[in-house]
């Protein structure tokens, strides 16, 4: 099966996200959480905890993990996997930062087409 077609789409700059913090990108029906770690790594995952749908972009970021604000599930930002005894997985989305600090994501074609508008 082929993965859905995506287009790399610029969404802002790395400095728009506070270090050890997150922002939310609203892309059509999707909400995507973009994280910046203390080491300036950028990760994007669905803004929905696999437990009860909590907004992960509102959680405390520690190392490469975020803790969901609703019930303290801990999600690995790299893999989207829930940690510890909890079982679940969040979709991860590839991110890119260019030399000028521009930040882009691979968004599904259907959504990315609207960016310029």
């Amino acid at each position, binding site marked *: 099966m082929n993965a859905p077609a995506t287009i790399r789409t610029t969404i802002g700059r790395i400095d*728009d996200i506070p270090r050890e913090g997150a922002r939310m990108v*609203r892309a059509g029906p999707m909400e995507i959480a973009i994280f910046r770690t203390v080491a300036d790594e950028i990760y994007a995952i669905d803004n929905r905890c696999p437990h009860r749908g909590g907004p992960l972009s509102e959680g405390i970021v520690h*190392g490469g993990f975020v803790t969901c604000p609703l019930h303290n599930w801990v999600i690995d930002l790299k893999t989207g996997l829930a940690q510890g005894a909890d079982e679940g997985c969040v979709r991860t989305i590839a991110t890119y930062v260019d030399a000028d600090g521009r930040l882009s994501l691979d968004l599904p074609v259907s959504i990315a087409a609207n960016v310029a508008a």
Partner: protein
Amino acid sequence: MTEKLVVIGNGMASGRALEHLFESAPGRYQVTVFSAEPRVNYNRILLSPVLSGEKTFDEIVTHPEAWYDQHEVTLVRGQTITTIDRTRKIVETADGVVAPYDKLLIATGSSPIMIPVPGKDLPGVIAYRDLDDVDRMLAAAEKGGRAVVIGGGLLGLEAAAGLKMRGMDVTVIHLAATLMERQLDPAAGYLLEQEMRRRGIDVVTRANTKAIHGDGHVQALELEDGTRIDCDLVVMAVGIRPHAALAKSAGLDVNRGVVVDDRMLTSDPDILAVGECVEHRGQCYGLVAPLYEMAKVVAATLSNAEAEYTGSVTSTKLKVTGVDLFSAGDFAEAKDREEIVFRDAARGVYKRIVLKDNKILGAVLYGETSDGGYFFDLLRQEADVAADRDTLIFGRSFAGGAPLDPTAAVAALPDSAEICGCNGVCKGAIVEAIGAKGVTDLDGVRAHTKASASCGSCTGLVEQVLALTLGDAFEAKAVTPMCTCTDLSHADVRRLIVVRRLKSIPALMQELEWKSSCGCARCRPALNYYMIATWPDEAADDYRSRFVNERVHANIQKDGTYSVVPRMWGGVTTAAELRAIADVADKFAIPTVKVTGGQRIDLLGVRKEDLPAVWADLNDAGMVSGHAYAKGVRTVKTCVGTDWCRFGTQDSTGLGVKLEKAMWGSWTPAKVKMAVSGCPRNCAEATCKDFGVICTDAGYELHFAGAAGLDIKGTEVLCRVKTEQEAIDHGIALLQLYREQGFYLERIYKWAKRVGMDEIRRRIAEDETGRTALVERFLHSQKLFQTDPWAERVAGHDAHEFAPLVTIPAMEAAE
């Protein structure tokens, strides 16, 4: 008839002797103890951790009041015996208190040597001997400035390190060429000196004090070579002298100390002596292990059992956190002696073993001391080490086939191996206690064997013996760590933040050796609270360590929307405020408006993007954040009091408003809810709150530590006061004490249970000076923190929190 035993001196040696006596001959003696100090018996060798702030006094008490009661010991405090009348068999104090004895135990200890230089009696010149000295040092450290410690021995260096940790500049003056020259050879002394300098402690060796100068208080110290060191405190730690004057005046044999035989009897067969005041076979001891060995023999002699004290071989450890140093035996060079030396400069490790006829005479270890006990065992057993000579210096791990796992190393130890040096407890005794007494934890081992009960440095070894003997049945958790990022408890962390002056989360994680790089969602919010509560002026609030509710100043709901609760002082509102709230609900299509349990109005279902605009409208109507989302001061609930109620005795509404206006905006370990009722009918339900006030005709009855949530608990009465201002001040002082002592997420009732209701009453109700200081600290913090977070965010603060990074619209329907 029971015999009368009188003990002169309430120190570690006599305390231990009595413990052994009550075990071997319970009820035989009616015991009276005379103590020159006005307190119960404590562990003197742990004064240094108290000075540095790593322990509290309560933690080093060895015999609490209950122990004296249990054994029916009469403790006469603050009284010094001046006369022993051996013909009438009585002792007498300076105040004329007389006690007859059948047996007398002299345990007068030692006194610090004060070197006879001009100025030695100036205020600010002290010794380092008891808790009073520690208190004096702490008082001096609070003012800052420089301390000079005379004496670079064990005690002097511990004092220097403690004073440095308390924030003073410190200089150590030492007569010999290297530090601790009686316990260390010059090479190890040099490494120690480097370590002291690295900590910012100045060290002057080969230095002799000529005079201490000062006008009414010490101001400077002058050395023989003319060097002048300005200072505010001088600590003399040059040594101790057995306190034998009393015994001498009674006509007992005294040389340097009170002379005793192998049964610990003095020249009078009804009088025994023990501890640092004693001279045995020409030796006087100043370390704890020999005193404990003597104590055993004293108890045996008093219960007519056979026992002999034949002298002690001693070992030394320096109790300065982060300095690993061990020495034992005799390590002077001589023609018939050989030595084995190992150095690793990169790691700062130095080891030296002195041998004679293939037996260990002495050992000095610096930087890596895990084999100290192994060498000390070989030394005391006078074991022949010829076979292992080549690898001896690498220690037990090499000899035993490299057991890198510490548990395996402990498993390999013979039963005769000493685990606890202070109390002379070997591995076999601990294993036996576990088997015979059913001991399952560290406290049990301490209670039955005394291992790890003194300086505590063998705690890890004892835990390994427990683990080996009990297998899976043993759980090592002596303290509950804050989270998996650390082994330290909340109590440890709060104390170390103060003592080590840690003022940022990264600094704390480095200094306290956090095991994760950036902490976790459990420790970070706690650390952030501890920082801003401890250092309101200096620590920056780290919003990344705050739970979302405290970042966006609203309560997150299950669907990701927020609830907004404006403050209504004391639960009082106006038509204009209600109108504004109604308008906001309409304008932003807020689905639910509800009255809360704390007499406020809650707007539920607000979209995050709308929060700043909602707040702007509420601000315009004069309302500020109600902090309904905060680990902070929430609400003061009130009844209508004398304004309206026919039973009201005071203006309860007015007091509630005043309390809330004084306290709002402060962060606390967990949420704080209060109430003021205008009469004992208690319509505001003040008796289940964190802090509550019941007004009466006579004034105000103050309550605290109630709960009506997960737990239900009625309040305790704090005290009764006459005026409204007193009620407010007591409430503020209570809140500040809780802010300073509470663990993160620990509500007031749990904190009060942990530290004790009476202790809190004492601090708030009885100690007026302390209360005033608490109020001042709170008001100072409020100057910095009492701002409306909503208004700040309406003005643009943290704007990124409230808007998506980008919004990409959905495809047109045409697609």
